[in-house]
């Protein structure tokens, strides 16, 4: 059974990184301290050895043709500076003849070739590692000439103790400093992460249905970026929830009346199917269901547009193609039979950044309105006007009343003049689309008729750029 690993904490990560650095640094410094301590101890005690050996060398004199050593106590007091170490000394004449020493039977051989100056070497003394120095002294007396060799040695206890002491002296403050650094980094990490913790607490305490923006005042820059992204996300969620709610409300509201009417017509038709009233009722029933279909289309289209405005990526769209598609897909032959629609587009593409579907739905609604409410001839076109990309629909009628255009885009702006196959949702889709892609809806009355246009900032490049 594998337990899922705990998510790692930032504090633990920072602390373990600091600890790793400290430990690695400590090991490196410790090694260097150890090497230095060993060197210092070796030099210090080598000097004592040399001092003792030189003292003994000084005390050699020639008496009756024989070298005699008047062993100085001072030499041994020097060596006793390493109070617990064993000592070796031997004075030998030419040919290795034993003159004096600790024990004639214990022979420590210095390395060959023997040099004319002091020579240090390491060897075992009675089974314990020891450091030795060999000091030669040359005599040229009337009755004795040759070299007398003094070897003095000492075991390594004091050197090791000194190395350990030096190391301890240096390592203790380091260990204390390391511990302090660790404690300090703990505090620093904690204080650096406190805003994050506060934010987490805030989020945990938050009502899950609360989609209002999280306050980012006083937070570090890194967190503000995160909060801003989160707030954007929550805003979108909020809008979508709202539009969903609107869609449900709209649908319910919009469907109630037509469905009731259909039921009434159906009842009339059922009561007396063969009478003229019944036939009229069947005609109306057909009309009602057709306009109910359009209404459903529009409701869905609006919901889709509003959903896509928030979620679909902005891509380069050529408004000419939008106009062309609107023209091709539009069922204007059904809405207004016999009306001709002119397409007016240029050679150059008219790029905007937006969602092709939403733009297409908006355009279809504009065209549908012109066909339903305007007068022929109707034109649709797309063009660049300065820095703006314009998609427009024009008819030859006078346009809607001023009160209608003022309430443009509100939902359900059905007025007394509205026909029963109109829901008033079309302009709402147009307005939402225009706003979503930083555009505007403009209505202009001219002598020749009424023109509605969608104005967007022109995109400088096409899809390939």
């Amino acid at each position: 059974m594998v337990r899922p690993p705990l998510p790692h904490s930032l504090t633990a990560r920072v602390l373990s990184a600091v600890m790793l650095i400290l430990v690695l640094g400590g090991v490196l410094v410790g090694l260097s301290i150890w090497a230095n301590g060993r060197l210092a101890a070796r030099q210090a005690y080598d000097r004592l050895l040399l001092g003792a050996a030189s003292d003994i060398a000084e005390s050699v004199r020639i008496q009756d043709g024989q070298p005699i050593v008047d062993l100085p106590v001072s030499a041994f007091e020097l060596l006793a500076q390493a109070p617990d170490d064993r000592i070796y000394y031997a004075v030998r004449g030419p040919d290795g003849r034993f003159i004096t020493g600790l024990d004639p039977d214990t022979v420590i051989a210095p390395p060959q070739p023997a040099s004319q100056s002091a020579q240090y070497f390491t060897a075992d003394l009675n089974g314990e590692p020891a450091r030795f120095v060999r000091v030669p002294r040359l005599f040229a007396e009337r009755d004795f000439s040759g070299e007398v060799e003094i070897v003095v040695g000492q075991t390594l206890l004091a050197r090791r103790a000194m190395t350990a002491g030096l190391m301890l002296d240096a390592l203790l403050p380091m260990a204390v400093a390391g511990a302090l650094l660790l404690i300090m980094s703990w505090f620093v990490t904690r204080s650096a992460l406190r805003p994050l913790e506060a934010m987490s607490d805030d989020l945990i305490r938050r009502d899950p249905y609360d989609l209002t923006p999280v306050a980012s005042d006083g937070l570090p820059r890194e967190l503000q970026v995160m909060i801003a992204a989160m707030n954007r996300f929550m805003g979108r969620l909020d809008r979508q929830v709202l539009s969903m709610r609107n869609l449900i409300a709209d649908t319910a509201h919009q469907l109630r009346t037509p469905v009731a009417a259909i039921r009434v017509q159906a009842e009339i038709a059922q009561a007396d199917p063969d009478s003229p009233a019944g036939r009229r009722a069947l005609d109306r029933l057909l009309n009602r269901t057709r306009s109910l279909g359009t209404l459903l289309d529009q409701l869905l289209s609006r919901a889709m547009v509003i959903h896509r405005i928030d979620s679909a990526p902005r891509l380069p769209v050529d408004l000419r193609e939008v106009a062309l598609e609107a023209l091709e897909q539009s069922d204007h032959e059904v809405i207004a039979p016999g009306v001709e629609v002119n397409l007016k587009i240029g050679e150059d593409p008219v790029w905007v950044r937006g969602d092709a579907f939403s733009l297409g739905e908006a355009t279809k609604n504009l065209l549908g309105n012109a066909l339903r409410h305007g007068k022929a001839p109707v034109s649709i076109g797309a063009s660049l006007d300065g820095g703006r990309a314009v998609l427009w629909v024009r008819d030859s009628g006078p346009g809607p009343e001023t009160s209608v255009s003022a309430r443009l885009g509100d939902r359900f702006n059905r007025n007394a003049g509205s026909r029963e196959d109109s829901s008033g949702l079309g302009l709402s889709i147009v307005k939402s689309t225009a706003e979503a892609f930083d555009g505007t809806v403009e209505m202009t009355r001219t002598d020749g008729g009424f023109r509605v246009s969608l104005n967007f900032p022109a995109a400088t490049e096409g899809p390939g750029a």
Partner: protein
Amino acid sequence: MIRFLIPLALCLLMPASRTAAQEAVTEFGTGPTPLLVRSTTDIGIIRPVMEQFAAQNPDLTITYEQWGSNALFQHSKTACKTGDSPADAVFSSAVQQMVWLVNAACAHRYGSALTQALPPARSWRDELWGITTEPAVIVYNKDRLDDLEVPRSRFALLDAMRTRSDLLRGRVATYDIAASGLGFLFAYGDSLEATTFGSLIEGFARIDAVATCCSAEVIRDVARGRFLIAYNVLGSYVANAQDPAVGVILPEDYTLVLSRAFMIPKNARNATGGQRLLDFLLSPTAQDLLARSGLVARMDAAETGLAPSARRFIPLSPALLVASDPNRRAKLFNLWNDAFDVETAR
């Protein structure tokens, strides 16, 4: 010429049949585990301590061998090199020889609260420990020598030997440095205080001083009036003799203070027994008993009237290796013999 009394002393002490180097053997206790102790300390003096130790350790049978210091040294050296008949504990007054043995890796390491409590001068390497406190003193015969005439320092002794040579001729005794490791150690200690040593030897030679081996006999002879003055005698033996005729002087110029050195040979068969003996000897009970035997002298100024600066403790330190140096020994012996040769030449 110095007359050597050793053969006589040895004849008196040893049964003719005994061929081993030890001078006397005594057993304490009847336990199953043997513990072999070799020491230079007279059985008579150490007896109460050993009996107490045996009483506290009924599992041990302690064989206590009393040796001459030089013989003990040679034997321990051989035992160390060959592993032949090692002792379980060795303690000797010739501490320079013990230092040599420890330096030659012949000792067993041990540490306990009691050994740790010893001052640094009384332990070395956790292998050698000083268990007694014994001054080197001048003893004199109280009946023959007036308190006022008694030499209280070496200078006074020198003067006495010069001015009253008739009275003192043949009646001053000191250790024979060749026969006794302790005698050599004291002479070596004196030789480091070079100003008086040479003249002291000359003085001894001039009045036909007697070099002898053994403290007990010297003191007995002082008590009997055979000797008037004995120089460099171990104070412990005097205290033990408790003879009212014997007076003791701690030399005022300086007094050497010795601490018998105890070691456990590295190849001891019953090292644990040796450790138990050591801890016992350092315990307050044993130190008390040793004090009663005179082996632990109170050296504070209040007790002895001796200035602290005049006390010369012989520390257990590698510096004592100098005393074992062959050339150094030869030089001291030469000095010793030369002085008397000069005297005989006259």
